[in-house]
């Protein structure tokens, strides 16, 4: 019993320590990014990796989610005889919630895990030490471009997701269940306000920062964790950690933003 409490205590302390390190990494990186010289190509490269290479995944998952949403909303609304609300339901659901969250989770799975593994391997093979010894700050060279690319890419991916998801919903509603096209489209346009689009935008910006930052921190500070000295096994451990933690961070902050912003 005491053992279990002790274990819980150390787990909590470890978690807090990691949170502190993550903030530390953010501030460090920000500070280092402000120092000249400025390099933009690494950011483009990371945007290619995080953003451009994720497009196919985002389109497939977006269409699927839109169709699922259209299907379920149709069945529910058909019970109340108000299928003309289908467009609004799908559009609001996608733009306010599912677009940002699903996109962020997709980025976690595709790019986030790769980021952690890359930095973790760089740590175990002393590539990060090598950068330090070449007087190149790893924060600026490795972490910064990834975080900036994340903040820029996730909102763009989110809106691509939104667009194809609305198309998926349209396909199910209008083409499959012949909901009148006018009521679908007009309901969508009338119900969605700028505040809804803005909410999605704010969410996706924050998710982009959170996901890339947490994944970078897990890999970058790998040597300070229990898994630090375990080489390949340690890398797999921190990668799993990064995926779990950043997914939780996305879902929890989604709730927080939803509660704070109308």
């Amino acid at each position: 019993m005491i053992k279990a409490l002790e274990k819980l205590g150390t787990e909590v302390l470890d978690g807090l320590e990691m949170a502190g390190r993550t903030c530390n990494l953010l501030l460090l990186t920000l500070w280092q990014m402000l120092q000249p010289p400025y390099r933009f190509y690494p950011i483009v490269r990371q945007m290619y990796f995080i953003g451009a290479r994720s497009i196919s995944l985002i389109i497939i998952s977006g269409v699927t989610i839109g169709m699922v949403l259209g299907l379920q909303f149709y069945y529910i609304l058909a019970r109340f005889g108000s299928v003309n609300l289908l467009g609004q339901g799908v559009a609001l659901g996608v733009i306010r919630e599912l677009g940002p969250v699903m996109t962020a989770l997709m980025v976690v799975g595709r790019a986030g895990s790769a980021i952690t593994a890359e930095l973790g391997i760089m740590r175990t093979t002393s590539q990060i030490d090598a950068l330090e010894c070449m007087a190149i700050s790893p924060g600026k060279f490795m972490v910064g471009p990834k975080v900036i690319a994340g903040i820029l890419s996730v909102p763009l991916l989110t809106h691509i997701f939104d667009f194809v998801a609305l198309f998926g919903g349209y396909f199910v509603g209008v083409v499959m269940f012949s909901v009148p096209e006018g009521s679908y489209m007009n309901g969508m346009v009338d119900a969605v306000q700028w505040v809804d689009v803005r909410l999605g935008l704010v969410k996706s910006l924050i998710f982009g920062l959170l996901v890339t930052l947490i994944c970078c921190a897990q890999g970058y500070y790998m040597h300070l964790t229990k898994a630090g000295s375990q080489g390949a096994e340690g890398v797999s451990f921190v990668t799993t950690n990064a995926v779990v933690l950043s997914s939780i961070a996305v879902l929890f902050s989604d709730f927080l933003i939803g509660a704070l912003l109308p």
Partner: protein
Amino acid sequence: MSKFNIQLATGIFVAVGILAFTYAAVNIGGASLRAAPGYTLTARFTSISGLRVGGVVEAAGVRVGTVSSIDFDPSTFDAVVHLRINEGIPVQEDAIASIRTQGIIGEKFVKLTPGGFDELLKDGGEITETESAVSLEELISKYIFSGNSSTPAAN
């Protein structure tokens, strides 16, 4: 992977993303870089329950404007609603602004009913004839408990 390909692919990605965002923001969200041409009117209601900023202003079922802001006047206990009316839509001085519901459980919106005067309201003018929100529960309870067969008047 050559440098050119990465930049091209990233460029395409950014362009597509911005297009999708513009679509969401302008076509669906109804945002505009500059305020849509039009003018602002105010209207006082004793109750607007459920009306939101960004809500629709309709005349004859056609969208003619939006609710730009909602204030509360503590001296009269009225709700002061600012309506952004699209350019070219005339609103007479005796036009009636009423708060209605789309369907039975839908969103609240402001309905404009044209008046008979020739005088038109200008920017900043006030619509004096207003009908507040009709509460469904109030209507029903009035109907049930009054024992009066005459239709209860709104407002």
